[in-house]
């Protein structure tokens, strides 16, 4: 049904590296990508992050490119609109529909390409995080960020129950499919309703059971987590430093340069 990137993160060889270092790499990449003024910076970031994810993170390249195409539908439609509507100046090419002239200016096209590059770089940074760091490692980070206890708690329990319910949902869906429950539109709608209802009722009952079981084990609204200390090693430090330096140099060299 859906692939969960967390599955890959748990098996990742980069899982046991320092969480803060990984977060710093990702935050730096995302911020540099989003504030870049030329498509070269996002391109560099995307290249480095994809390399790190595939080479160090041992993610199958085929799977990696498949998930990189997830935003394609939304991004392509949006950048076409941006190319046509954004920017001023002489049109590179234009055509008439219903008496309106639609044209693409060089400024609009540049913006569209820049946005495309930024999205690819942002997604590759995000993938680096989600394919190398399982959520369980990030809860300690959320706690250290001084978010309210109840928030972290609920996030944690939600994480656990997402997998329980996905399992239930997949089981029900499978059972419905083999009974021709998704034969045509009408039956699939009916099956969908039954699936949703059962899921809701089951989640509710599960929640009540969870409360009882946690209460009987002296739950007082706080769960203590083990936050393992993982010092940053020298090679990691050097590699990260080199990556930051390359991105900053590209950032500085290509200020305001565009393709067209």
């Amino acid at each position, binding site marked *: 049904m859906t692939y969960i990137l967390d599955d890959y993160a748990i098996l990742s060889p980069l899982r046991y590296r320092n969480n803060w270092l990984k977060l710093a790499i990702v935050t730096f990449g995302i911020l540099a990508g989003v504030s870049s003024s030329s498509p070269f910076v996002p391109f560099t970031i995307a290249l480095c992050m994809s390399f790190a994810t595939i080479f160090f993170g041992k993610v199958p390249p085929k799977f990696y490119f498949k998930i990189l195409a997830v935003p394609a539908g939304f991004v392509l439609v949006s950048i076409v609109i941006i190319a046509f509507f*954004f920017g001023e100046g002489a049109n590179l090419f234009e055509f008439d529909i219903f008496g309106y002239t639609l044209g693409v200016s060089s400024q609009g096209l540049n913006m569209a390409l820049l946005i495309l590059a930024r999205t690819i770089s942002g997604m590759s940074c995000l993938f680096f995080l989600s394919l190398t760091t399982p959520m369980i490692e990030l809860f300690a980070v959320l706690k250290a960020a001084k978010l309210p206890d109840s928030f972290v708690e609920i996030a944690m329990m939600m994480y656990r129950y997402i997998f329980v319910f996905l399992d239930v949902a997949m089981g029900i869906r499978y059972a419905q499919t083999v009974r021709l429950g998704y034969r045509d*539109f009408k039956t699939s709608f009916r099956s969908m309703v039954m699936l949703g209802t059962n899921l*809701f009722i089951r989640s509710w009952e599960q929640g009540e059971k969870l409360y009882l079981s946690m209460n009987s084990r002296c739950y007082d609204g706080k769960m203590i987590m083990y936050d393992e200390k993982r010092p940053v090693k020298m090679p990691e430090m050097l590699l990260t430093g080199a990556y930051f330096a390359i991105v900053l140099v590209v950032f500085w060299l290509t200020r305001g340069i565009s393709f067209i």
Partner: protein
Amino acid sequence: MHIFEGFLPYPWWQAWFAISIPVILYGMYKMNKLVSERREVVPLLAVAGAFIFVLSSLKLPSVTGSSSHPTGTGMAAILFGPAITAVLGVIVLLYQAIFLAHGGITTLGANAASMAIIGPLVAYMFYKAASKAGMNFYMNVFLATAIADWVTYVVTSLQLALAFPSATGGILASFIAFAGVFATTQVPLAILEGALTALIMKYVVQIKSDVLVDLNVLTTTTVAKLKEAMQ
């Protein structure tokens, strides 16, 4: 529709964070209060959040052959109120960004504004107003969730239009273009989600109506009336 990572340029992603964060903080404050009063709601809220996530990852059957996902936030707003839905919605959005590669971190503010705040708020206000006016419960749920789903996409179109205004027609022209693509295609899906939620509610009333009474969605008398009508 989530706005993907890196899509919103410089002042806009910060601006949407500035709009979303106070609302989410207010939601957290509300949730903290609720949790300190009634500790048993913690697991219930957690499973509710997980339910939103799973519901939103299911593919809806679609007439045109393309598939789309329900947002599930309209239903959550009716069940838990908009403040708590905002907090649960943010966690769901974060998980969708990290687990499913839908959405992003810098665009989290904008996505939270459209999907976790404005959409659910509209659904909740509609639901409250219509139930005061005495509208049929299922019709009400149908309209509230369908409108919430659709409003989410209108807000997303507006966010894109504000960030990328048209050179000739300004924000309005690019809003029409974005809304023309995203909001119009969403109309049948919004209707579908509304119908789905209304039917789910029908079964829930049938099988486990006490949950709805516990959550103050319905009173005992309305449940009795709805059950009577079913027979």
